[in-house]
Each structure stands twice: as structure tokens, then as C-alpha cells.
């Protein structure tokens, strides 16, 4: 019985990623958050270092590693910043896997390979101003015109949206039929350099301010025939597949972030003195942190079981929904306990804890809200 899912090679990779995260990302986070921006070079560097295609096959420009290599990557970025983990995970777990899974050789050459090298930045486009998790209700529409497609509509809350070179976008191409609520949806690779694409607004957020989150507008944008990703009308099934990887990804870096917050809070509780002793000597504080550590350990165990199913190609919709829900709750609980334990220091702008506390609130909304996960689980459990 081995005690860790990781091999020595993974441990080595962890060292390399950690070094990068601590030397090239962590020192800038306070500035980036203040500016509400971060440089594109983060993607370029991650690509140069081979981090953007760790679990992609070599034939598609990846490193040919297993999924646990991607787990290592997401954990190490999640340790320093949920915001940067999110933007990189959009690249590695959301925008690009559908191209590998459903794309043509041409699309893999044109979009996937440069994306894994960090030369192109991708985004995933599902949510719209009027619809989020209810994918069947999306209104952005692509209509055939000769060999081309004409795209009209808007997309909302799109991470990397303002800087993306391409957006893996879910679009309506057929009518919503009552007997087939999943039909009429297709996926496209939208080249944002084409005329008719407009970033309407970069949204100012309460947390993860450094990541760009955009409202996008497509006004009769003309797409070539090979912008269609996979088969016409198959988009719903394709995006449901994508969402599994997306939710696993955010769960992995989420729990790593919670653990990092916990570790820092424990260090604080050992050092900070009040009433003549370290606050960690007070049972009320030590028990709170014991509870938080237990939550982290438990959810971590759940996530690793989930990752293990994933690597064995088990399509674990139930476990993935559980993981997403559990991690969202965990992060908010742990971050709140951290702020409480740090006292005033937990509320100072520019610190790790305050930044992550604000950022983690997004985890219970993005990628399918808590309520959506509960709804999925209700269906799987045969309740709804």
C-alpha cells in the first residue's frame, strides 16, 4: 500500500513548479492585484517551462505526462494564488482539452500547439448575460452563410476574455426543440482577431481582481468553416465533458489554496502573542484550527479519490460535482477562519490571506454554483 499518489518524478516536478511560483509569481501578486492586471508573460513563461501541456500527449505538443502531473501543477499554483491558478487552469483544463478531444489535426496545429507553448492565450465561453449553468438557454447564435458562420451575441464573466487569442465558445446553431433540449448547440474556436469581436468591458471584481474577466460582444462576426469544433449540434455533450475537467481542475487548486491558508494561519497562531502567550496556546484557537485542518485533510482525500477515478477514465460526474461543492465550501470556511484568527492583519490589503479570502468567494459561484452542483447531485441520486 503506497502512501502517496505521486511518484518521485512528480515530486521533482513539484519542486520546479514551486520554485517558479514562488520566484516569478508570488512576489508580484500584491502589485498585480492592486493594478487589477497581470502580464501575459505568465502564460509565455509557463509555456516555455512546459507547464501548459503536462498531461497532453507529445503528439499534440504536450509533455506526455499523466494527470497527476497536472495535479502537481495546479496544486503548486493554487498554493500561491487562486487567481493565477484560475487563469492558467482556464488555459490548461478548460479552453484546450476540447480541442484535443474534438478538434481536427488542423485545429490542433493552429490552436492547441501554440496554446500549450504559451504563445496563444485561450478562454472558455459559456456564460452569457442571461444564462450561466443553464447551457440549453444560451442565445449567442451562429448561422451558416455559405461556408462561413456568422456569429452574434454576447458572453459574460469570461476569464482571460480581454486578452484571449481564441475562445472555445458554446453557441446555438439550431433551434431549441422541446423533445431534445440538448440539441442545436455547437462549439467553436473563435479567433478574437477577426472583425466583429469586441471586448465590451473588463469587469471590476471584489476578488481575483488581477485576472481579467470580460463581457464580450460578437456583432455579426464572420467565422471560417473550420472554426466549428467537433460536430455541429454536438456542443452540449462536448461542453458537459469539458465541465468535468474544469471542475476537477478548480477543485485541485482550491484545496491546495485552503491548505496554504491553513499553514500560514497556523504559523501566525504559533507566533502571535496575546495575553502573554501565543494565541495558538488558547484552546479556542487551537481547536478551530484543528477543525479546519480536519476539513482540509478530508476534502483533500476526496479530491485525490476523484483524481484517481479521472485517471482511470471513469466518468465520475457524481464525484466531480461533490468535489466542486466540497472545495468551494472548504475554501470559504478555511479562509474565513484564517481572517478571524489573524484579526486585523487578516483585513489588510495586499496580504495573502485577505487576497485569497476575497478570491475564494468566487469558487462557490464560478464553474457551476453550489446550487447547480446540488442540483446535479439530486439528479444523480434520483431525487429530482
Amino acid at each position: 500500500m503506497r502512501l502517496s499518489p505521486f511518484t518521485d518524478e512528480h515530486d521533482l516536478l513539484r519542486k520546479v513548479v514551486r520554485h517558479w511560483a514562488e520566484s516569478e509569481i508570488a512576489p508580484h501578486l500584491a502589485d498585480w492585484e492592486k493594478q487589477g492586471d497581470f502580464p501575459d508573460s505568465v502564460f509565455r513563461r509557463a509555456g516555455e517551462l512546459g507547464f501548459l501541456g503536462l498531461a497532453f500527449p507529445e503528439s499534440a505538443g504536450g509533455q506526455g505526462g499523466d494527470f497527476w502531473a497536472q495535479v502537481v501543477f495546479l496544486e503548486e499554483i493554487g498554493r500561491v494564488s487562486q487567481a493565477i491558478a484560475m487563469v492558467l487552469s482556464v488555459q490548461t483544463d478548460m479552453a484546450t482539452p476540447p480541442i484535443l478531444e474534438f478538434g481536427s489535426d488542423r485545429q490542433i496545429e493552429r490552436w492547441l500547439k501554440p496554446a500549450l507553448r504559451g504563445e496563444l492565450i485561450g478562454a472558455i465561453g459559456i456564460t452569457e448575460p442571461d444564462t450561466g449553468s443553464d447551457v440549453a438557454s444560451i442565445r449567442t447564435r451562429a448561422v451558416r452563410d455559405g461556408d462561413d458562420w456568422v456569429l452574434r451575441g454576447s458572453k459574460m464573466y469570461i476569464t482571460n476574455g480581454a486578452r484571449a487569442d481564441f475562445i472555445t465558445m458554446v453557441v446555438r446553431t439550431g433551434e431549441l426543440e422541446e423533445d431534445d433540449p440538448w440539441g442545436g448547440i455547437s462549439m467553436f474556436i473563435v479567433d478574437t482577431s477577426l472583425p466583429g469581436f469586441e471586448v465590451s468591458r473588463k469587469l471590476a471584481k471584489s476578488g481575483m481582481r488581477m485576472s481579467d474577466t470580460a463581457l464580450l460582444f460578437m456583432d455579426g462576426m464572420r467565422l471560417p468553416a473550420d472554426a466549428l469544433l467537433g460536430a455541429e449540434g454536438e456542443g452540449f455533450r462536448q461542453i458537459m465533458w469539458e465541465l468535468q475537467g474544469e471542475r476537477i481542475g478548480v477543485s485541485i487548486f482550491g484545496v491546495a489554496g485552503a491548505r496554504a491558508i491553513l499553514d500560514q494561519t497556523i504559523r501566525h497562531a504559533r507566533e502571535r502573542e496575546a495575553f502573554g502567550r501565543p494565541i495558538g496556546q488558547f484552546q479556542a484557537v487551537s481547536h478551530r484550527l484543528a477543525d479546519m485542518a480536519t476539513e482540509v485533510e478530508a476534502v483533500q482525500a476526496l479530491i485525490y479519490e476523484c483524481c484517481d477515478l479521472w485517471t482511470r477514465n471513469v466518468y465520475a460526474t457524481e464525484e466531480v460535482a461533490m468535489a466542486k461543492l466540497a472545495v468551494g465550501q472548504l475554501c470559504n470556511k478555511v479562509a474565513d477562519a484564517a481572517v478571524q484568527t489573524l484579526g486585523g492583519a487578516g483585513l489588510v490589503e495586499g496580504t495573502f490571506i485577505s487576497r485569497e479570502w476575497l478570491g475564494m468567494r468566487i469558487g462557490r459561484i464560478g464553474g457551476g454554483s453550489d446550487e447547480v452542483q446540488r442540483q446535479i447531485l439530486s439528479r444523480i441520486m434520483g431525487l429530482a
Partner: protein
Amino acid sequence: MSGLDPLFLEEHDSYRQAARLFVANEINPHAEGWEEERDFPRTLFERVGSAGFFGAKFEERWGGTGPDYAAEAVWIEELSRSLTFGTTSDLGAHSQLAALYVDRCGDDDQKERYLRPSVEGALIGAFAVTEPGAGSDVNGIATRARRDRDEWVLNGSKVFITNGSWSDYVVAAAKTSDSPPDNITLFIVDADTPGLERSRMKMIAWETSHTGELFFTDVRVPDENRLGEVGSGFGHIMTNFQWERLTMSLSAIALAELSLETAIQYARDRTAFGRPVIKFQVWQHRFADLAVRIRTGKALAYRALRLHIAAESGVDVPRDELVRVTSMAKLFTQRLACQVADECVQVHGGAGALREYPAQRFWRDARVGPIGGGTEDIMRNIIARSLGLGTA
């Protein structure tokens, strides 16, 4: 190789089927009657023994089929889904505590006399540390054993001892000197030894369990029944706590699963405002949340189980990690079982208070969990210490 090693193999699946069948045929048909009578027959031990379910973690030379702790976990999970948790607890205390202590600490003669018949179910064992004045604070026990030539003379009392009122033998902890920590020793005391008096405690939970009080008045125990070295008791107790807490974690998860299934079934059958209660989204989502918590707790308990299996098979598992994760599993799962059982009572409405429905029993039985085997605050103390935090 990356990834998690599988915990259960194919052979464990068939073991699970057999265990499930045993519980369905030999226990559950009688569960309501036993609960009504607050009792169950001693012969159940023999039936469990002859079916082989006391044997998974013991070697063949003592009548077992192991050691296979994954199989033992399977038995615990299935047994804990019985509809009479007090019965589960008696069977568990016999096997996971008394018999295991004899196995871990005993010599061959003691194993021949106590372990083999325990595996067969011919003898019932109890394990006694807790006293009126000391529970988790093991060093606070007041029962004393004084050496008198080839015998030890025990005086003191024990409470909350599962199987205490009807066991054939008791593994009892007593102080053998005044200088801690090496001043506690374990003894195997035959129940018919003069001077040992016992009574059954009337509890609001685990109602079929034979939880007892023991009174030792000049109870003479031969030195050949001393279990382990003089003064080794505290160490043995601290070590075996880990397995006990893990079994309680697996048990609590099974009880929580059973409570959730029962709750969901009731919500399907019960109509309110013109539709089944299950059609209300708040109940769907509440059940979904509980399912996530159960699955999370189970993942944690399984992580602890992996550490135990690894340690048993000779892998160098850091003891700190084993203790920390096991304590976390116990902390997480016991209160969880209470929460799930509480929602099970809630969905039953008025019927949640009726003894004819099992919901109230799950709720009462689960409540022992955060207290027995080390309270939840004791778990937090242990975890906090492992994090380098004080517990003043």
C-alpha cells in the same frame, strides 16, 4: 506507478456479499424484537464466530483468516448497517478491543485460552479503561493492582464498559505503581473471579448493548493473566486507540449512509402539499449536501485505513501522521453521523419521534460517537498538538 492503490480487491467484494447476507439473515429480522427487549442472545457471538466474521484480522493459527484489515473494514461497514447498532457495538467491542488486545499484547498461552475462543465466538470479551473519575484521561484511572506473590489484587471500578455486564472475560487497565507514564498494566480478568461484581447500565442509546459497570474488590488475578509487561498498559492503550477510532469512523459512515437512505426513502413515500416531500428542492439539496459530507468523511476514513494497512504490512508510516489522520477521521465522522441522523428524524416529522420508526434510534445511537473512544474535543487536542499548537 502513480495514483491510489485499490483498497478493496475482488475477494473483498465477495466477503462483503457474505457479510451483508449474514446481517440480513441473522441480525436484521430480529432487530426490532431485540430493540424492544433491549437485549439480544449471547448465541449471536457464536454464529458470527462460526461464520468466520471475527477472524479477518487474526492469524490462522488462532482461528482467523488474516491478518487482512481491508476485509475487517468490510465486515465493520456491513455490520454497522444492521438495524440494531447496540448489537453492532457489543460485537465490535468484543472483536476490535478485547480480542485485539489479547492478540497484540498476549503470549501464546493467553492467545490459546482467550483469543482462539474469542475468534470462535465461544467467549465474549470486554475492555475496561474508563472509570467514574477518568475517561480519555487514561492516566487518571484509580483502579489499582497490587502484587501478591504469583497474583495481582485488583481494587477499583469501571464504567461504560461495552459487554461489561455479560462478558466472559475483561481486559482491564489498572495502576501498578505511582510513577507515570509506565505505571499502567493490563490484566485479563475472568468474569467469574470472586470479588468482581457487575451491573448493566440503562442507556438511552445502544439499547441492546450490554454496557456495564464493574466493581473490583480484592479481585485476585494470576500473573499468567497479566497482559504484556508490567507498566506497558499506557503504550498499548495509546496504540490500540488508533484502530478503535478508525473502526468507529468506518462504523459512523455506515450509520450515516443508512440514515440518509432511510431519510430519502421516507421523503419519497411521504406526501405534503400534494406532492412527495422529495420533490421539494430544499430536501433534495439537503440530501445532496449530506451525501457530499458522507463521501468526504469516507474518503478521509479510507485514507486513515490505507495508513493502517500500510503500517500493518510493514511500511514505515510516520506515527504522527497515522495518529493525526485517524484522529481527524474520528472527529469528522462521529458528528457527521449525528447530523445525518438528525435530518433523518427531521424529514420524518412527527414520525421522527415514534419508536416504531428507526430514525429516532439512528439519532440516539449516533450520539454516542462524539463521546466514546475519545471525545471530539480530545481529538481536537491531539490534532492541535500535531499542528504545533498548544491546548492550554
